C-alpha cells in the first residue's frame, strides 16, 4: 500500500497539487510525444525533407 498511499496523500488528495501534477505531466508528456512522433516522421522520410538536404546549399 505504501507507494500508492504516498502518491494519493501527496498529490491526488488536494485539488491544488492535483492541478499542478496535471500541468506538469502534460508538459512532459507533450514534449516526449512530439519528440517521438517527429523522430519517427524524420526516420520514415529519411533523405527527403529539407533538413536532410539543406547542408548542400548552405
Amino acid at each position, binding site marked *: 500500500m505504501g507507494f500508492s498511499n504516498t502518491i494519493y496523500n501527496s498529490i491526488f488528495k488536494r485539488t491544488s497539487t492535483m492541478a499542478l501534477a496535471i500541468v506538469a505531466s502534460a508538459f512532459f508528456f507533450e514534449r516526449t510525444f512530439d519528440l*517521438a512522433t517527429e523522430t519517427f516522421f524524420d526516420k520514415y522520410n529519411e533523405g527527403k525533407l529539407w533538413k536532410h538536404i539543406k547542408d548542400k*546549399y548552405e
Partner: protein
Amino acid sequence: MAATVGRICGVGLLKPSNLTTISQKSSYSTAKDWTWGKKALLGSLGLVAGGTGAILFALDQSVKASDLELHPPKNIWSHTGLFSAFDHASIRRGYEVYKQVCAACHSMRFIAYRNLVGVSHTELEAKAEAEEQMVEDGPDDQGNMFKRPGKLSDYFPSPYPNEEAARAANNGAYPPDLSYIVSARHGGEDYIFALLTGYCDAPAGVVLREGQYYNPYFPGGAISMAQALYNEVIEYQDGTPPTASQIAKDVSTFLKWTAEPEHDDRKKMLIKAIGIFTFLIATCYYIKKLKFSSLKTRKIEFRPKE
C-alpha cells in the same frame, strides 16, 4: 414484425439475456413519446437525406465513359502514402522548371519568395531569387511608381499584366494561374504529369484549329498549350539528368506543394493523431469497463409480500 425477426434471427434476439440493462436503456429514450406523425416525418427525412447521399456517391463512382477523354493513370509519387513527406529536392528542381519554362506563360500569384525558405531554398538563396525580378512599387514622395529589386515578401511575378493580355498572346486561350492548379483539376498531380507528357499526333478525324495541339488527357483533346517539355529542355543545378519525364515529375511535385503547402505537417499530424487517439480510446475503454462493472454485477430482486 416480431414473428419475422424471430424467423430470421431465431428467438435469441427477442429474448434479451440482460433484462435489467434493457429496461434501464429504454427509460433513456427520448423518442418514446413522439406522435406517429413526428416519427414518420423524421423517418422519411432521414430516408431522403440518406438516399440523396447514396445517389450522389453512386453518380461520382460511376464509369465516366461518355466523352472522349483519357483519364490519367495513377502514379506512385515519392509523397504517396499515409506518412510520406514531399521529396524536397524534387520541389527544388520543380521550381527551376517552373521558373525557366512555365513562368513564360503562367502566373503564380499566390506564392511568395518567402514561401520557398525552409522548403526548397535557404533564406539567402530565396533572397537572390527574389532580387532577380524587378517589382513595381510606390508611389514615392513625388507620386510616381518606381521599379525596385524584389524582396522575400514579393509574390512571383506574372508574365502578363492581365487576363486579356494573356489571352491575346495565346490565341485567345488563358493560361491559368498555377498556384492551386493541382487542387483544381481531377486527378491532381497525376493529371499534370499525364498532360505534360501526353502530347501526341491527333487521330484521324480530329480537327485542330490554328494554335491548337492534341492532348488526349485534356478534356476535348484540343489544347492551346504547345508541348513545353522535351528531353534536356533545361539543365538541373544538381546534375539530375533532365529527361522529359523527370522534368514533368519534378514540376508536378512542385505544383502539388504550391497547392498544398501544409502537406508535410498534415501527415505529421496524422501520426500524432493516431498515437494520441490510440491512447485515449484505450483509456476510455478501461474507464467504461470500470464504471459499468458495478452496474452489471448488480442484482435487483423483486420480493412480493406473501
